[in-house]
């Protein structure tokens, strides 16, 4: 890389490092919002492996997020009195989610893509039903009430929930999570980029574009699809663990179908298969609704004197509309992957 590029990269890194300090001065809420946005980028990149690279439509992706979150919550909360360290639970959550992905995928991946879509949709719902009801007769998930008082991260004796002061700068809990998430995100992006160029990634793209031809070329399509599914799921599981640690509370309500759709909308809008596009899509769809939350209400109050359209409804309308309009006018997404662009614009 040239000096100029290095300089630019350093600038970006510095800006990212300084971001929580700037945001804290605006309000800690914005640090939390940013953290959630990063978590969603994380999720979107995981789903990107499944939908974008391998072309398998997964509509129950949030279930894997839920598996990770619940694994963390059960093993690090007073619910069972277990308090295992995070470096055991996070990988465990990823493992469990990955296994769930493989178990779900095994019977359905032999079939055509749209069956997979509907089965994953159902699976997401089933996971939620189980989370809601597994409080009887033995209390495993604590039902709709969810699990509270989950341990936060604890690295080398530093508790993440408290505020620490370093060099005279106070670092709040959310700010510290921001840095952890940033490290994880960098890792995920690197993995994604490397995957894309690897033998596996190219096999996925081949399957996405023409499964029959891929098979003929000697790719074990079933195993490759299973791998994509499990890998995407384990990303979701890791994100779920982080979510549980950050929030300190999980309940089935966080894992409804709408969340799966939201993550899918991020991938589709940004540009399926393109890591940077997905990142941008996830950022866009995370922040725009937050800005709306702060603007829609006052504007409506001013114009009509009352709240006509709930911001939450508007948020969902944007996601639904984004899916429809993207497919209609820019089927390869806002920032398409070059290969995908060719495919989506080709007439059959």
């Amino acid at each position, binding site marked *: 890389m040239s000096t100029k590029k290095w300089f630019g990269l350093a600038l970006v890194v510095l800006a990212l490092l300084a971001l929580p300090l700037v945001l804290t001065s605006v309000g800690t809420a914005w640090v939390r919002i940013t953290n959630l946005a990063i978590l969603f980028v994380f999720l979107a990149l995981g789903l990107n492996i499944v*939908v974008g690279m391998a*072309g398998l*439509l997964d*509509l129950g992706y949030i279930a894997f997020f839920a598996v990770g979150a619940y694994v963390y919550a059960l093993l690090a909360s007073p619910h069972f009195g277990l308090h295992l360290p995070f470096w055991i639970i996070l990988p465990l959550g990823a493992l469990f989610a990955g296994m769930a992905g493989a178990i779900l995928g095994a*019977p*359905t991946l*032999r*079939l*055509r*893509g*749209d*069956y997979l*879509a*509907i*089965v994953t*949709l*159902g*699976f997401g*719902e*089933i996971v939620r*039903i189980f989370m*809601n*009801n597994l409080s*009887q*007769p033995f209390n495993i998930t604590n039902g709709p009430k969810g699990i509270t008082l989950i341990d936060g991260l604890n690295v080398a004796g530093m508790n993440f929930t408290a505020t620490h002061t370093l060099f005279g700068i106070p670092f709040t809990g959310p700010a510290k999570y921001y840095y952890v998430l940033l490290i994880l995100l960098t890792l995920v992006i690197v993995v994604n980029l490397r995957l894309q160029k690897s033998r596996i990634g190219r096999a996925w793209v081949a399957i996405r574009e*023409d*499964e*029959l031809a891929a098979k003929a070329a000697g790719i074990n399509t079933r195993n490759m699809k299973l791998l994509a599914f499990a890998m995407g799921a384990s990303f979701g599981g890791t994100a779920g663990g982080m979510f549980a640690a950050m929030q300190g509370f999980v309940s089935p309500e966080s894992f409804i*179908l*709408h969340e799966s*759709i939201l993550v*899918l*909308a991020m991938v*589709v809008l940004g540009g399926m298969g393109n890591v940077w596009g997905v990142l941008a899509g996830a950022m866009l769809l995370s922040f725009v609704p937050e800005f709306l939350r702060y603007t829609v209400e006052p504007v409506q109050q001013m114009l009509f004197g009352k709240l006509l*359209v709930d911001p939450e*409804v508007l948020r*969902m*309308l944007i*996601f*639904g*509309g*984004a*899916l*429809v309009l*993207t*497919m*209609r006018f820019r*089927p390869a997404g806002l920032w398409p992957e070059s290969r995908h662009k060719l*495919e*989506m614009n080709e*007439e*059959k």
Partner: protein
Amino acid sequence: MEIFAQQIINGLTAGSVYALVALGYTMVYGIIQLINFAHGEVVMIGGMVALTVITTLVGMGLPLPPIVLVLAGIIAAIPICMAIGYLLERAAYRPLRHAPRLAPLITAIGMSIVLQQVALLIWGRDPKAFPQIMENQSFAIGGASITSVQIAIILMSVVIMAALTWFVYRTRFGIAIRATAEDVRVAALMGVDANRTIAATFVIGAGLAAVAGVMYGTYYGITHYTMGFMLGLKAFSAAVLGGIGNLAGAMLGGILLGLVEALGAGYIGEFTDLCRWPLVDGLLVERCANGGNVVLFGSNYQDVFAFMVLILVLVFRPSGLLGERVSERA
């Protein structure tokens, strides 16, 4: 035995509704190989429209017999749902007919979310209770009882299914639909207007959905803006069970699914009651004492059955009970 007979009746009623919805999925799938994800939402809107009409009529205090009220609800719901079905096809699916398979699926999901949110805006977030218009007479059959609403639902769906079968197999338009399902291009060469036929299929499916929505509302007494989701999922499972693309299959699948669900929900509590299992009994003596029971899965798992059926069918007989075509098409 009484529980058994009762669950059969309940299952038949729910199954009739599933069958009507499943027909919509299967017809659309048969003709353009697309899962119309938004179909469940059309059912929901049908129920909501009928609810509004019936509530308004009841509110006006006219001395109308209940059957007229329900019919008015259905008559209002059908054209609205048909219009939505047509719009869905025109706006979301037709432009993408030649796009890769993933594209129309994604638009379908988007449309389903949009429809749900629009319904939320119009009818609100809370579940809406259907007005109690029919005095629910029940008749005893062999220890079980069947209500007038249940009889009406079963009869009506039988009539509708018979009419649909006649339409598809005996009329010119029905032949056009089947020809298009067989091969769009060849059908077009024979003078079939493919666009019109496909649109008509959506519209017919939406009409059936409207009726199913009203039935669902009157039977369960409640409508909610999210009700289309589970109902749609179940009906799709029913269509796959029967063999997707196959009309008789959708009807059979719907009825079977209704029965499986009703019997499952009726008996699962008993079967998974650990106190009845000799092996575990010793460990749970305290909780089982005095006729107590430790039920692993209660009837709140009812919604899981449809999904289990779907997975089992996909694993063991992907073409469904009556389907011939193997679903693998490049």
